[in-house]
């Protein structure tokens, strides 16, 4: 066991864990977070996704001790009490069924839009390919991402006028 320091959602946390412990278990069992969830433990489904310095990583396989950047989880996406536009679009489009994988869907979409704010339909499909859903909500996930892109474009056009 050794003392790790993690920066999560803007706060600093310490955890006394075996350094090989995957980040997912430290976030859930030591820090009490609930956004990232266990899906496969193999980096195949995306359910455990968190952002580290803006990049989507699979927390189920990355040892916590290897993380040095700022971690953002689903709980940390909202800013100043306002939901991330993706979270709002998820509500507007009534996206989930069971919702278990939607941490992965939303966090992967956030990383995708941060990389590419105006993705084509094909780029959305490609960028989201690693986020599996067994209720098969893909059609609405894609609709919600397109809605966020559309609304951001509308805002940009409005402010340019």
């Amino acid at each position, binding site marked *: 066991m050794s003392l790790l320091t993690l920066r999560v959602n803007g706060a600093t946390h310490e955890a006394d864990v075996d350094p090989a412990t995957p980040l997912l278990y430290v976030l859930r069992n030591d820090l009490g*977070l609930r956004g990232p969830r266990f899906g496969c433990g193999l980096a195949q489904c995306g359910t455990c996704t968190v952002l580290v310095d803006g990049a989507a990583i699979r927390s189920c396989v990355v040892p916590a001790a290897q993380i040095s950047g700022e971690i953002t989880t689903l709980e940390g996406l909202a800013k100043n009490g306002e939901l991330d536009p993706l*979270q709002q679009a*998820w509500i507007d489009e*009534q996206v989930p069924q069971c*919702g278990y994988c939607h941490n992965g869907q939303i966090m992967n979409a956030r990383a995708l839009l941060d990389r590419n704010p105006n993705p084509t*339909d094909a780029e959305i499909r490609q960028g989201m390919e690693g986020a599996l859903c067994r*209720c098969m909500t*893909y059609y609405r996930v894609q609709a919600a991402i397109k809605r966020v892109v559309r609304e951001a474009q509308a805002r940009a056009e409005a402010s340019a006028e």
Partner: protein
Amino acid sequence: MSATFEFPKAVVEAALQTVNPTSRRDFLKSSGALVLSVGVNSFPASKAFAQAGGTGPYPDPDFRQLDTWIVIHPDNTATFFVGKTDGGQGTGTAFRQLMCDELDIAYADTRLVMGHTDITPDQGGSGGSDAIERDGWPMRRVAAEARRVLLELAAERLDAPLAALEVRDATISVGSDSTRSITYAQLIGGQRFDVALTGSDVNATRGLADIKPVDALRVVGQSVQRYDIPPKVDGSLTWAVDMRLPGMVHARNVRPPLAGATLRGIDAASIADIPGLVKVVSRGNYVAVVCEREEHAMRAARQLQVDWAPPPQAPFPASAALFDYMRGATPTSSSEPIRRGNPEAAFETAHRVIEAEYAVPFQGHTAIGPAHALADPSEGQMTIYSNDMKTYGLRNGVAKFLDMPRERVRVVYMDGPQVYGRTAADDVGFEAAFLARELGRPVRVQWMRDEETAWDTKGPAYTFKLRGGLDTEGRVIALDYDARAADYNHLWYNDPDTVLIAQLMGRRSAAPFAGFASAPAVLYAVPHQRMATHVVRLPLIWETPLRTGNLRDPNGPQVTFAFESFIDELAAGAQVDPVQLRLDMLAASPEDDRFLRARSLAAVRAAAAAYGWDPRPSPQLRNTKSRAADPILTGRGIAYTYRIGTVVATIAEVEVDRRTGRVWVKRLVCAHDCGLVVNPEGLRNTVECGMLHALSRALWEEVQFDTEKVTSVDWLTHPSLRHSDTPASIEVVIVNGDPNPGRPDLPPYGAGEASHKPVIAAVANAVYDATGVRLRRPPFRKERVLAALQAAAV
């Protein structure tokens, strides 16, 4: 290990209301105002649980008491208590809508508690798509009864005749005179109704009041947003997978590496170095490791050296040989064939006879989140936190399994990954309860991905033989259907003798369950037909990873794939448009009490109209250009079916890549009639996802195995539909979407499974239309499709 968790409001409320060891109702009576005014956030939730966990016993809530179903709070809001669960189809929202309309209260002023065995009446949890169709009725009737009682109280308090009273948003007034009004809270807030209901069983529950006619419903028919979605997307929801209790330990199972293997010995020293190791538990062939920390339990399960004796004979044929095995096996049971007319004679006189064989492999639930449960054995009780869709069955099953009085066992329902049938969510609850009792501490059990994919129950594999006879006019005059399902020892829900831990411990039911093979739901007029079904068994029936159990619409996708593909083969043989053939065969069918014929014709026509169906026989004229010059072939296919009272017609449009064999379903159109629609947007979402789930079964899903073990163990060896497979367009046409369709008694039918049923057939029919190649065995992965195209020189 000092993490603090906020429990969901519903659970906290449940816990608060069970602090008193007698009953929730008595508690309400003695201190109702107190409990209801306690701010949920100001009350330390873990303390509530610590108290609640040690209480009990937990007698069955009395469904014949109005207070069991509805509580009116002092702030003029209401909480509804129903014995159902919501797998993500929005049924919880729909239940609130149904009850709001009858109670005359605004949707926003209500809450719903579902599936907690100690505080909600036993409606059986979920299953069979009957949430609205069956279980919505008693909810409506008890809400109507509450309204009736409140009106009587108001008439007395306002000194006005009942007929003069009006109700709006939980406020009763004399006519429109706002000075003479009283709220539900003023009448009864925080107190008991103390009104007895009647009914021979929970579904028959009713009071004196009648429910409203459909055309008086206001909340029903609205696309109210689902209340469960915001906490699911902002990370605030506490799921079953999040539950933690003080003193809790983590368990992982260690499964036999070979199906049917026998435990010879465990080398406990092999994990002596693991910190926080609590115990290695073994009983028969069931083995689990328990550690203080989760990552150590995972490591211990991997590292533990276990000596297994291989089984005396191969447990099953390899998946590549499965269908040959099934066709050659002697059935364990065969149904008496369903006969109409004289099919043998009709085949003799038929102008043309067409024959085809189909097959569907084992397909799995493979939930996105592997099974999990937490069991707390505090003070001689057993509380299980679970997402099992049948929490009441889990409670009863665990009580029998552990030989505990039912009153000492309760199940607290919480959200979890999807459960479309008999899943490992059943199995894991028993494991958690068993281990919790062994250790005397709260135990959380979490299955791993390989365990979930390999060992969860499977939908049965099928083989089919079909024959059809056409007359000289191209009409279908004879049909012969012969199906075999590998479904011997089919598991039922939460059965203490057949859950996985029971099997591995050597516990056996007196006789294996015979299993099912289904005949298709046929409304088509075929004068001469014979439908025969058989069940076959694999060599190993106990302790096998190829356990069969209900998977969404248990036999529908398999049977409808074969039958609706064959109807398409008959249409092609007769050179008739496949939509027209179906309309002709439906038009000649007898009417029935669910007026299925008229609604079926309407659904097929609606699907064709929405798609813009161009009448012509399949396949379309074959492209003669080279693969390189014209690589993509496009086609469309239809399939129709019904499920109990719901009718559905689905059209798929595909693009088939001749170079790779990849099938992309570009467009799906579904005409869907489930009668009364409670929440149109919720229905659309459910229908869409039901279709895409079936599309995954059409394109990707197959449980594979060698002669020793299941080899489908993760998302590489068991692929599933992905974002790139998503259709560009999905249209859901709600055929009877109007809540006032001119029939005030329009009943609702189920919607959780019907749209799942015809998709595999629609895709196969579309591939045939595009290519002239008939795919008779899913999944239609590109290697299989490419081989079929090449064999046909397409």
